[in-house]
């Protein structure tokens, strides 16, 4: 079988969590073939990342060149093409960098491309059988991917759990000399940090989070009312921000904020993996959605199959009622 490589995403000298997940996927393709890490970058950050990978990879290919200091997919693609052997299988994380790099890389390698892979069920002949999701996670799908001329597989972050344990004592191999001068038609200028809004949802213990199920802008008042009664704050998923109904600073997800509440009420949210990636710290999650098959019910602790536009006002009324009772009890004691 072909040699398997893991492209390591890193930032500020620290490898992404997916660096520990890609070897797990690689073992499901070929348990006998140790997976090689490929790291591009520049300077001390790159060296630190390579060093940190020695525990989990037998071999780490380091590619250092100053234009690679910021990960520009076009430059990285050229660097990879200069070092990868024919027929290689390349694993990359399916994130904002992976979708920039992988499709074009597969074309230039004349290799197959399988995006957003959740699981790998094995190889029959030259065909890999993998699991994906479609329709925002509402259904799963088996796909077959032809490995005969190599492949690029974009692996869903978090889908392959690192087993830990094995200490590889890997060696770092400097491949920088294989790369010629790199130029690209796209040039990194700067990163603009996320705007901070009126409320910092990352510091809230209780979030009432709304999604597409809120239906229209005027209905946001329903969520705000229940949040006010509960002493919580309203956050949201991507469609609500796309529609310009709430600020980007209120968006939970991989392209929005990462939140760590104690309690998370997901209201009319389908539960895409991009949204779930923004919820950390295992909060108590309540999902309310009128579609009983919504993917959110697979991950929530408690589910309620109901229309949020009717359920939330009932909840708000009840919270206020109890609040009055509790208030009275406090006054009496």
């Amino acid at each position: 079988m072909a040699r398997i490589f893991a492209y390591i995403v890193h930032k500020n000298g620290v490898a992404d969590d997916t660096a520990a997940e890609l070897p797990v996927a690689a073992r499901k393709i070929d348990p006998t073939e140790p997976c090689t890490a490929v790291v591009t970058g520049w300077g001390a950050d790159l060296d630190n990342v390579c060093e940190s990978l020695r525990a989990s990879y037998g071999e780490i290919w380091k590619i250092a060149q100053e234009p690679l200091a910021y990960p520009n997919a076009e430059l990285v693609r050229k660097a990879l093409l200069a070092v990868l052997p024919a027929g290689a299988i390349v694993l990359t994380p399916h994130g904002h960098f992976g979708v920039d790099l992988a499709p074009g890389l597969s074309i230039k390698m004349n290799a197959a491309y399988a995006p957003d892979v959740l699981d790998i069920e094995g190889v029959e002949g030259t065909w890999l059988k993998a699991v994906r999701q479609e329709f925002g996670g509402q259904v799963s799908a088996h796909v077959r991917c032809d490995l005969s001329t190599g492949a690029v597989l974009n692996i869903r972050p978090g889908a392959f759990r690192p087993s830990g344990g094995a200490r590889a004592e890997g060696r770092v191999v400097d491949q920088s000399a294989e790369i010629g001068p790199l130029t690209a038609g796209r040039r990194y200028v700067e990163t603009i940090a996320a705007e901070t809004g009126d409320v910092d949802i990352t510091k809230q213990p209780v979030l009432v989070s709304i999604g597409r199920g809120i239906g229209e802008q005027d209905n946001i008042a329903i969520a705000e009312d229940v949040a006010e009664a509960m002493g919580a704050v309203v956050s949201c998923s991507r469609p609500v921000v796309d529609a310009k109904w709430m600020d980007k600073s209120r968006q939970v997800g991989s392209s929005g904020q990462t939140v760590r509440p104690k309690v998370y009420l997901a209201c009319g949210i389908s539960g895409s993996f991009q949204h779930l990636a923004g919820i950390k710290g295992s909060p108590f999650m309540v999902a309310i959605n009128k579609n009983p098959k919504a993917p959110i019910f697979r991950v929530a602790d408690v589910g309620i199959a109901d229309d949020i536009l009717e359920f939330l006002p009932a909840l708000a009324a009840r919270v206020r009622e109890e609040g009055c009772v509790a208030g009275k009890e406090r006054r009496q004691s």
Partner: protein
Amino acid sequence: MEILVCARRVPDTSENEIELHGAGNDIERDDLVYSVNEADNYAVEEALQIVARTGGSVTVATVGGEEDEEILRREMAMGAARGVLISDEAFAGSDGRGIAAILKAFVQAGHYDLILTGVQAEDGCAQVGGMLAAMLDYPFASLVTSIEVLEGRELKIGREIEGGSKEINGIDLPCVLSIQTGINEPRYVGMRGIRQVASVPIPTPGASDLGIDPHAVGEGAAKMKRVDYFAPPAGKGAEMLGGSREEVVDKLMDLLKAKGGLN
């Protein structure tokens, strides 16, 4: 600026609950409501806003069959000057690479400064734009959330990266950009608008018109194939609260109190 937008007709997930049909290996396709892929619609709106500033025109193309014409007319009603239905029996069963190869031939038969796609369709592959760019040797950027036209055949673009941050890049024209939802507010299209473009002819070039080798595309050439659909694993699964709405509210109140959900 001459802009090509590659669009696709998909089952509308905001209108449908996608379910497996009885045999369990495909989705239930009866009564599905189709529409233009959401991100593609944002791409068309972005293209229209760019030509409103710089001049030029917008062409919308899709690879498909007769049934896909409706999305071309919808995007023409938004303001696209032309709709093109790239259609041939040989294209059936193409994977992302096949679709990109077909679009490459179409692009090379015209003159476009900028090619836009939606960031992804209902299959979540997010692949055709990046593949097309590589085939054309054009620069590419995915997840684009802003476009500014600069002097000298260059764009300043913003890309969505992690944590709500935005990555700013300069990119040379011609290029391919995949457009993220939320980049703009797509204009409304009424029935009247669609009626006005109902009789505008839509060209339907096929493999031979575009010089495409039928064996290089379609199911036979596909390196990635979907085998079947199946129900996602249940995971730990939520405990569903049943009963009347009042009973459910009661149960939820108890849980919220226990878990610190009421402040």
